[in-house]
């Protein structure tokens, strides 16, 4: 979708055109959902959070002033809403393998790449992500799970590229330590 088309759709959405709004956001559903899943830790909460994200974006689209890319704006809302939701649900603890439901692991193993990972490896990774601090979790979910560039992450998290680099380094280091403890690297 070109920037021109996006701009036209945004203008229509700002006037309350729901189909135009859906056309704008549908292409981002997968990333929105994966950001939500990465931050919330399970599919049920992730879908609730994604729904809240879309509602929030729909309500706020009238305030979008084209000062950034529309995609950057919606992912920023996604990351913030999910982080807030997580805090509300008070899930700042590591989730043991037993607590991960079949749905979580089943969903994670749905992609061909994931098939190369064992069930235990996937659950170790999810648990390790859940144990990260909010800011580290955010950048790891954006960078490693969703493939955003450093510049995009800087726009989404509203900080400098340098800050993004250092957070990613520290986040990966923290993940590495957690995964070492769980025997992840010995499998």
């Amino acid at each position, binding site marked *: 979708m070109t920037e021109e088309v996006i701009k036209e759709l945004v203008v229509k959405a700002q006037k309350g055109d729901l189909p135009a709004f859906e056309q704008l956001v549908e292409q981002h559903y997968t990333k929105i959902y994966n950001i939500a899943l990465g931050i919330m830790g399970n*599919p049920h909460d992730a879908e609730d959070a994604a729904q809240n994200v879309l509602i929030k974006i729909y309500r706020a689209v009238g305030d979008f002033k084209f000062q950034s890319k529309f995609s950057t704006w919606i992912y920023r809302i996604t990351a913030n809403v999910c982080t807030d939701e997580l805090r509300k649900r008070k899930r700042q603890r590591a989730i043991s393998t037993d607590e991960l439901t079949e749905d979580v692991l089943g969903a994670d193993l749905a992609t061909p790449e994931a098939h190369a990972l064992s069930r235990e490896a996937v659950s170790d*990774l999810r648990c390790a992500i859940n144990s990260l601090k909010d800011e580290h979790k955010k950048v790891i979910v954006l960078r490693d799970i*969703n493939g955003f560039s450093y510049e995009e992450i800087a726009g989404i998290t509203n900080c400098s590229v340098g800050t993004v*680099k250092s957070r990613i380094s520290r986040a*990966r*280091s923290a993940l590495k330590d957690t995964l070492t403890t769980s025997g992840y690297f010995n499998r």
Partner: protein
Amino acid sequence: MIDCAKARELSGSYIDGELNEAACLSYEEHISCCESCHEEYDMLKKVSVDLSAIATPLPEGFARRMHTALVNEQFKMQKEKEKKSKGFVFPLYRVGSLVAAALVITVIGKYGVYDTYKKVMEDASHMTTMLHEKETPKPADTPAAEEPAPPQEEINYNVTVDNSGEITPSYENTTDNMEEVIPEEPIAPVNDTVEEFPVEATADVPETEESAPAAEDTAAMFSLEKADDTAKFDTGESSGGDHTQSAPSVARAMMPDAAEAVQEEEGITNDTDIAEAAGYTTADTPAASGGGSSSAAATELIPAVVTIHNSGDGSMIMFKKFLLTFLDSSEISENNGEITVTVTDDEYDSVIQRLRSNEYVKSVTEGTPSGGKAVITIR
């Protein structure tokens, strides 16, 4: 050569391809010599690659659920907008607190503020009088009988009512202000299903004469009879013009007390004129008509039930809106995600035809008109 601390700092950017050429070379030179940093690099690289593999496809039905949530949100926003657009109306009960505030001010600063107090009391009294006048339509303020009746096709059968149960004077509609008016309280015989159709049935009543009800194209309206009777509505086009029933009868069906008020206010007593003005007939013959040859006494009506269910992807909310454009909310009920429309035998065919032609309707399976059932599936 860089040290281990610097190497750890660069490892993330190196893995992500964010280092310039010189920095890359420095980092590679270090890890080729430092076993621990090389091992750390291997672990960090594996974590990064493995994380990229756990991105998940969307769950089934995700887009549909998001669409439903957004449609619901759109309705909520519409209602919020409608409430805001009514503007601020000073409620009568606030006069009491205004008076109380005036009294407090007077007590605290009694010396020298007597005049202020007096003025406030006078103002409050005046405001009370104004609000009473506004809520109680005065016959003297209503249009005279000689004023031309509004064109037939301009009248909305949903007569506007205010909270006191009386119809506001502006029964005469103008084309200048066709903002749709939806009464807050159901004006048809109430049943629980009214609550299920918030967009159509629960918007607020206009406060002023200017916000007249929007015109409904009567050609688009169906003739319906309520199964539990009270009134039958018929467009002019569907009968031979034997309009002997009255707008007041229509209003009576919807809100009995108001009907008399309308008749009085409009000064309309002749049934033919009334019917012409209102654009429809009713099954009830008013006492004044004396000649009701047109409509037989209401007989027991056998309802024909039309069930509407969702094939899975459709929006029941949108479909309900459509139904309310030609059906009364008392004729529509919902249970377990299915909508049921109850119409009389006479109107069954026209309702089915209407439903068939609607874009939301995926299929229509007809039953027998007499007490039978049709099943409609929406997209």
